């Protein structure tokens, strides 16, 4: 299948007043057309920054220090602002966690949708834009879209708003959607509906999806492949089912074991001691070594690259023999 996006050795730094910190340290992953990839990690792992950097939306003190973001042959890390605007919100769309932050409260849904269309295609007629908007609202299963189009964001429930955000993201028929915690603010029953909707849309529209979340279960339900991030690096990646069933990296193992499971009611949960280091004090060697239950001497000095684990998942861990470091 055709390659849609390739992020390679992406290094993002933040120039802070106390000095420069590295937010991501050589992140690489690829996404095929129509593929759904989960970017999983705890807060501060660098997953959101990675997502934002793809469409060049890192806020001021942050910048891409090295690496490339290849989107259908074009390096998004290097193209100018002008060109980026023709891609962002057009060929690559973004969905955020809080729908109220994205929707303008004083404009109707219809105005906001047609505005977006005009932004990317100034020649488009009013009628046509409205029809496209209606079509997208139907796609996300908004009941009676003709009526809803003239309503304001506050007239919708949280779940409906998130559907509208998705409809707006779909307007320009993007090839890739980056969704940053799209279901975190939602209730479980609504979360389940939004997840189903995302899967369905990716399949019918042949869109790629990068799902950024902290929730392993959500990723398990939605995506085909997964990249687990820790302290600014990808520590494990592979097919979702395989990573969850047989995690190779001790961090992924710990994370999955820490989830409450019905079979072990009332028992102590498996806990990873300590907490993730802040970007300022990432330890030398493997960033996970102070918390790892299988730590070796080498972990404290050498940073492991990604390499195949026992089941073929790539894991950045010294437990597995080096040598076949992944290229690309």
């Amino acid at each position, binding site marked *: 299948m055709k390659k849609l996006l390739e992020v390679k050795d992406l290094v993002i730094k933040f120039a802070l007043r106390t000095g420069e910190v590295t937010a991501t340290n050589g992140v690489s992953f690829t996404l095929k057309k129509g593929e759904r990839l989960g970017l999983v990690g705890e*807060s501060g792992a660098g997953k959101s920054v990675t997502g934002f950097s793809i469409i060049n939306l890192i806020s001021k003190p942050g910048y891409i220090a090295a690496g490339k973001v290849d989107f259908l042959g074009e390096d998004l890390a290097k193209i100018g602002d002008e060109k980026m605007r023709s891609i962002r919100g057009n060929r690559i769309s973004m969905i955020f966690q809080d729908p109220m932050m994205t929707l303008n409260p004083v404009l109707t849904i219809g105005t906001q949708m047609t505005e977006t269309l005009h932004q990317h295609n100034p020649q488009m007629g009013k009628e046509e834009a409205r029809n496209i908007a209606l079509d997208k609202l139907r796609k996300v299963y908004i009941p009676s879209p003709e009526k809803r189009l003239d309503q304001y964001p506050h007239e919708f429930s949280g779940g409906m708003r998130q559907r509208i955000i998705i409809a707006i993201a779909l307007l320009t028929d993007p090839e890739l959607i980056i969704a940053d915690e799209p279901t975190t603010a939602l209730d479980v029953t609504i979360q389940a509906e939004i997840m189903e909707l995302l899967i369905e849309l990716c399949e019918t529209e042949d869109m790629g999806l990068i799902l950024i979340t902290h929730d392993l279960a959500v990723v*398990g*339900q939605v995506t085909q492949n997964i990249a687990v991030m820790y302290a600014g690096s990808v520590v494990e990646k592979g097919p979702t*089912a395989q990573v*969850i069933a047989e995690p190779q990296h001790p961090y992924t193992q710990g994370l999955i074991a820490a989830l409450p499971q019905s079979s072990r009611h009332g028992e102590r949960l498996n806990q990873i*001691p300590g907490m993730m280091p802040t970007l300022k004090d990432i330890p030398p060697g493997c960033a996970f070594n102070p918390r790892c239950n299988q730590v070796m001497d080498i972990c404290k000095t050498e940073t492991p690259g990604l390499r195949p684990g026992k089941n073929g998942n790539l894991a950045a861990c010294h437990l597995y023999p080096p040598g076949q470091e992944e290229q690309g």
Partner: protein
Amino acid sequence: MSDPLLTVKNLYKHFDISGGFLDQIGFSGGKFTRTRTLVKAVNNISFELKAGETFSVVGESGCGKSTLGRTIMGLYPPNSGEILYRGDRIDGLDHQRMLPYRKKMQMVFQDPYASLNPRKTIRQALGDPLCYHNPQLNDGEVKDRIDEVMLQVGGDPQWISRMPHEFSGGQRQRISIARALIVDPEFVVADEPISALDVSIQAQILNLMMDLQQQYNLAYLFVAHDLSVVEHLSDRVGVMYLGTMCELSETGILFERPRHPYTQALMSAIPKLTGGASDHMRLKGEVPTPINLPSGCVFHGRCPHVNQRCIDEIPQLCTLNDGRQVACHGVEEGRI
């Protein structure tokens, strides 16, 4: 069976959001009327809690679960109903008569960043309530007790001279738990204590709560929306929808085979790690506002098994053979 530690009987809590007197005046049908807008957050909730037990209240946002916890803690005065602690009524007590219960009942909050006063050192955060309730303690005893509690929650006694902003979310939640524990409570309301924390930290805090429960025979009222956590932790679970309790049962029984249609929908929506095709049961429509509660069963507008009786008559909790309580006409009649 021992006597219950906490008994809640027919509790109602409505909030008046109609604003000032002038805002309430309306004009309709040729005359002025005064209308009040009430959010009916908690409606006719009854349950019991035994010493050392974990009772969880689950439900989606706006179902009134947090209001229930706060009303029990006396943060909101109930509109009607009774709250009994070891058989004594504690609702509507004045400040002085409530004080002895404040030592026995404590609370852990959701947001570790808002629940500690940003201008108080940890020593003040822990020492103030301790000294307030035990004025006879001298400085040395206070310090010993703070150190002791800090160690119990997996903290470091060195922390106490620092300010809250110097700690991570997980550490702050440990401090919040320490603050609740320092007065030696028997009963703790935990309002979403882990939902603001990262996954690997959640497990640490849950383990801590379970350890402390064993050590001190604490009873928890655990308010949460995360069903898998609730299943892991609780002895009994109550499911709330729109301010009412729709199903209440022992955890194992409930999760194995939910009976109320809402519980069934809720359970089917839990994302499963193993993925695959979801058997998610879709609900039609959306949660109505708690301002205009539906007639009859509050769930009737979204229920796949609705009939005329559900629209007309409010179902009461009735006990089934397996000990669970369900408020559903369909279950009662045997059609679900």
